[in-house]
């Protein structure tokens, strides 16, 4: 769970921890989660730490760089993209474990 951002299907321990944490949080009401977050205690239940090597975006952007959100309902594909964008980008290739290639 502490490596949530590196979640991958081949890491059953990580996946198991994620499922456990989410299942537990899902038993709580939204107001209770808000209370835990406000008290700074949510990390006890959802110990996700964002990767420290992610570049911090610039403070400001030009108007033409902004992709404005639609106020209409999203379709399934748009929802999936939104969820995907909530996860930090995966580590650059140079940080990934090397695999031995067969000749």
């Amino acid at each position, binding site marked *: 769970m502490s490596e*949530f951002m590196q979640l991958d299907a081949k890491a059953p321990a990580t996946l198991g921890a*994620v499922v456990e944490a*989410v*299942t537990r*949080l*899902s*038993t*709580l*009401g*939204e*107001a*209770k*989660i*808000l*209370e835990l*977050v*406000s*008290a*700074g205690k*949510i*990390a006890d239940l*959802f110990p*996700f*730490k*964002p990767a420290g090597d*992610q570049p*911090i*975006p610039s*403070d*400001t*952007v*030009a*108007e033409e760089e*902004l*992709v*404005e*959100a639609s*106020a*209409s*309902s*999203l379709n399934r594909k748009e*929802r999936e993209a*939104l*969820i995907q*964008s*909530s*996860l*930090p*980008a995966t580590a650059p290739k140079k940080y990934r474990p090397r695999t031995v290639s067969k000749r």
Partner: protein
Amino acid sequence: MPRRFARSAPSKVDKRRRVDIRVTHMAASDALWWDTRLGPKHASMAGRADRYWSWSMLLPLCHLVQRAKRRYCRPLVFWARADSGRFLRVGMLIVIEAYPYLDVEHPADSHFVWFMSGADAGLLTTEFGMSNPPALGRVLLDSAIVLSQNAGLAGRIGLHAAAAGGDGLLAVYDRFGLIRLPTVAPLPPSVRRPNDGRFFYADEPVAEGLAAALDASR
């Protein structure tokens, strides 16, 4: 025609002045920026209900928890024009779509404002070159109402005022014109917690009144 999000808000410094606002979807990089550039400063402000919020954690958490409940979240970022003419992040909002309406006398779906945060106005001025930080509270709530209306939920929304916000936060939502759920009122069964008197909601007429008041700024 569906309503659009508001594209301007009054300045906190000079109410006659309008500040350009733009709304985008929230990505991990937005949460990272907020946590890095504003989070440490907000954390030192004792009166802020959001002083311990980590958006980098909240963003995936909200999606995951609501997906487990077969609901979707809509996380949004609010940008305002700084003195340079460029746009700066000034507000964050996470809305849960199709949430049980808090008024159980009228069973229906609504949108639920889960996490809502505006950057400290003083910080925006002193550290980010924004002489006219926007008054953002109404715009954030309006966005939830507009999403609800456009989703066919007639603008119905609900929220819970974080206990960390104390009486001051209750007064803010009262002032905005939201209806406070009486402490004796039952909550929808799936909300699964006692009513602590800090729940607010907008019914259809209240929502329409609030949205119409901002129509000129869309």
